[in-house]
């Protein structure tokens, strides 16, 4: 298949099934993109970090990034249009016809199932990301659960949790602090 068309279609599929904000997209992106070898899990995490530090939603940023890497600037346009098109059409139709859309009982029913499932999916991605962050030389199985773990990563993770939950620092600032801690810990400890 033509790469531009493929980028458009894959990201249209991702856009169509992203419900509940950009983070809901991470499990989808991870599956669709890593299966095609367009990006590794590290690459996905890099984009999450970039998205936190730059304006704009993760969904758009990752589509642009992957599109450009696969097929240059025009590939970026194809992927970005792909991820934006399904919701554009749906939002316009809803804006036109259903002002009380959210109160409709069928929509309510579907959402009552989707919301918890999305959380489960995001939790699964979180686990994958944490595993990748804590075992920087690679996961070596349950037998080496504690011996292979990198304690510097755990320390940064713990500081990050305290920073974001207790001190409520801005995510972008937290990413910058994590980067600084990474340089300090992994260079000198």
């Amino acid at each position, binding site marked *: 298949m033509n790469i531009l068309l493929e980028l458009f279609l894959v990201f249209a599929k991702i856009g169509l*099934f*992203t419900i509940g*904000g*950009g*983070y809901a997209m991470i499990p989808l992106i991870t599956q669709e993109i890593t299966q095609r070898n367009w990006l590794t899990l590290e690459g996905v*995490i890099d984009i999450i970090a*970039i998205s936190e530090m*730059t*304006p*704009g939603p*993760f*969904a*758009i*940023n990752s589509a642009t*990034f992957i599109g*450009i890497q696969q097929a240059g*600037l025009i590939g970026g346009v194809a992927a*970005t249009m792909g991820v*934006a098109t399904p*919701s*554009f059409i*749906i*939002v*316009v139709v*809803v*804006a036109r016809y259903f002002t009380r*859309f*959210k109160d409709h009982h*069928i*929509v309510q*029913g579907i959402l*009552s*199932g*989707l*919301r*918890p*499932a999305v*959380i*489960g*999916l*995001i939790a*699964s991605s*979180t686990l994958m990301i*944490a595993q*990748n*962050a804590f075992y920087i030389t690679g996961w070596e199985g349950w037998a080496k659960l504690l011996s292979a773990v990198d304690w510097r990563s755990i320390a*940064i*993770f713990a500081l*990050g*949790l305290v920073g*974001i*939950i207790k001190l409520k620092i*801005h995510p972008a600032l*937290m*990413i910058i602090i994590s*980067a600084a801690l*990474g*340089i300090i*810990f*992994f260079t000198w400890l």
Partner: protein
Amino acid sequence: MDTKLLKKSLKLFTVFFRIGMFTFGGGYAMIPYIEHEIVEKNKWIESEDIIDIFAVVQSLPGVIAVNSSTFVGYRVAGLLGAFAATLGVILPSYIIIAIIALFFYNFRNYPFVNEAFYGIQAGVAALMCNVVYKLSKSSIKNGFAIVLALSAFLALTIFGAPAIGVLLIAGVLGLAASTLYNVKNKEEPTK
């Protein structure tokens, strides 16, 4: 074409371009900007309508920031307005990411960048934990939701099930459960 609509759409484009440039950290961070630009400065939409729009677009596929721009654009200037607002809000991140993507892999080889990204990976893991925590607190309110969330988690983690399949099944189950619940409570009139 109606020149008034065209003018409004051009204005929408520049307003949402500015909003897109300064929206760090997702959809809700946009609300204050939209209030300022759309409600107060240009008086295109009432303040209560903005809240309703955010409530509606949350339940639609796509990104909240982009969806709400499309919706506001449509309300202000029809299809052309929707297109102008959407393009405006997306374009800044496209430009910024294009610059990063074109230079990123050179930049990845600089000294200290690898160490920085080890730190960032741990930071992103913490960020994601917080997202899961906050979402669970707001959306998991009964046993049915707990079972669904856990099943989805296990399906993906243990069995590597396709995420889209899990979402489709969850949507059907949600609809079935709420229909059964409504039938059971038929005697009591529900709004």
